Structures are given as structure tokens and as C-alpha cells.
């Protein structure tokens, strides 16, 4: 994974719009958050291979970045994205890693299921 290049990510978001795509969206504090520190509230959520279509999408901010995808009846929103996979031209793999390198948030789009 590389640090996000917003122009390149925007180009890929545009390439995937107006078609049926698969979405993986995730956010997590880790399963051991409260075991390691009882003041922490453990939370995680993911949806994998949801079928969506968006008519407009953009990346915003100066890093960490936000992405919003406008669907016919709703939105996909993600904040805290720091990295993307440059070497995957067909798919858009993005994630937000914290200062320890651990994944906090992920947003992935693909024409094929993950």
C-alpha cells in the first residue's frame, strides 16, 4: 500500500461509476481493544461484497482523506483513509492506518467480488 495520491484515486473512482460494482466497507478498533484497555469501547463493522452503483464519487481533504459516493438512494461515506494499492489497476483498494500501522478503516471497490 502507498500513501494516497488523491488525483489517481479520483481517476479510479470515476472509472468505476455508473456500473454494478462490489463494495467492501469496514471500520474497526480491533477485537482486543477493551481487553487491552478497559476504558476503550470495542467496535467493528464491515459489509463485504455489497452490490452498489454510484453516479458521482469523490475524494476530499488533505489527508487523512474522505470519500463519498452518491448512490440512487443513499450514500457511501468513509473518513480516515491514508493508503491505497497502486498496483491494482482494476480495483480500488483503500485503507486508513493509525500511527501504529494498524488498519482502522477500509473502503474497497471492484467489478468482481472480493
Amino acid at each position, binding site marked *: *500500500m502507498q500513501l494516497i495520491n488523491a488525483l489517481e484515486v479520483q481517476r479510479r473512482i470515476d472509472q468505476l461509476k455508473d456500473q454494478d460494482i462490489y463494495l*467492501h466497507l*469496514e471500520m*474497526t478498533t*480491533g*477485537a*482486543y481493544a477493551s*481487553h487491552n484497555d*478497559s476504558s476503550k469501547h470495542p467496535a*467493528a463493522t*464491515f459489509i463485504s461484497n455489497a452490490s452498489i452503483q454510484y453516479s458521482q464519487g469523490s475524494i476530499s481533504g488533505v489527508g487523512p482523506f474522505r470519500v463519498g459516493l452518491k448512490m440512487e438512494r443513499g450514500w457511501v461515506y468513509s473518513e480516515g483513509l491514508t*493508503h491505497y*494499492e497502486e498496483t*491494482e489497476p482494476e*480495483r480500488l*483498494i483503500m*485503507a486508513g*492506518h493509525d500511527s501504529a*500501522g*494498524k*488498519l*482502522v478503516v*477500509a473502503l*474497497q471497490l471492484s467489478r468482481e467480488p*472480493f
Partner: protein
Amino acid sequence: MTAEKGESGMNKRILVVLPHPDDECFGLSGTLAKMIREGAEVTYACLTLGEMARTMGIPPFANRVTLPQVRKLELEASCRIIGIQDLRLLGFHDKTIEFEERELLDGSIGAILQELKPDIVFTFYPGYSVHPDHDATGAAVVRVIGGLPEKDRPVVYCMAFARDHQLAIGMPDTQFDVGDYLKQKIGSIQAHRSQFQVPGLDDKKPSREVRERFGTERFWTYRFE
């Protein structure tokens, strides 16, 4: 500590049922290496590939898409280092064990039990093992084994590490001195390099701190009521 010494692995058939690659390394790898040296045959049924872990290497070298394959290779390396003869990947999805169809989950564990008829099963203590996948895996194992006639039940040794678990389940009743198998244990931990980087671990010459921290593995024998 009043723990009895665990039984030896002499000619034993052992089944390990755990949900994630790396669940074996800190609490069990030394015991398995010791029992294998004593002649045991070990099958490790790993339910998932730990594909939802949030650690992607330290610093990250994997991503959400490549992580399952990375962790599969790490698990295979860990098994080779420990000496495990038979690794089964059951193909369930990380974080979903407690939500999985019970017939499918119990059926796949039951089929392996029926095939192998193990003397000893290692798993997590249901309810006292922190991660929901750990608890759900242990619960499935004791549910399936509890359904067998008493004479056909293997001994079930459980790992537990929830906060204050000893208030509920007491002290571990079985322990193994794995001081002679730290090379395998440290090798197993280091094999899972996407997940752990433990400072000061050296499999050539383990320090006294490492010997004290890793030299004994403790288990609770599950009591079927």
C-alpha cells in the same frame, strides 16, 4: 501452583481446533512440539484465515485483499516449525463463527472428530477467551464432544485468558513445561510475522525473561456435566 502434570504425547492422536492462524503460537505451540517429539500425531483444524485482522505487518506489508494468502503461508510455516503433520483449513470467515449456521459448524468439527477419534483435543475455553471467534469455537467443540457417549469423549484441554477468568473457572489444572521446546515456540510466533513483532525474542538463545514468560503452557480440562 498445584497443577498436575499433563499427560505425555506418547502415541497420542491430537486434534487442535482454533479459529485463527496464530492462535496456536503463544499458548500451545510448545506443548504440541513436545507431544510430537514424544510420538503424537497432530491435526490442526483452523477455522478461518484471520482475514479481518487489522495488523497487516509491522510496518504494514499486506492489505485487506492480500492478507488471507499471507496468513495462510504463515500458518503453514508455523505448523512446519512445530512439526504438525496435518493442517486442515475449514474455510469459515473471520469474525463470523458465532453467527455461522450451527449445523455446518458443528458438522465440520464432528466429521473430523469421527474421522480421527483423537485422544486429546485442544481448543479455547468457551466464555473466557476474549475474542468472540475463540469463544464460539470452544463452544462448538464442547457442544459436539458433549454430544458423544461419555466413553467416546477425548480429553479436552482449553486455553483461557479473559480478564478475571480464574475467578470463574479457577486455576489451570494441567500444565506442560516446554522449556526444551522454546526454539519451536519462538519459531511459531515469528512465523506469524504479519501479526507479531515481539522484541527480544531470539530462538537461538532465549533470555531468562523469555524462558519465564514462555516456558510453561497451562490448560483447563473441560468438565462435561
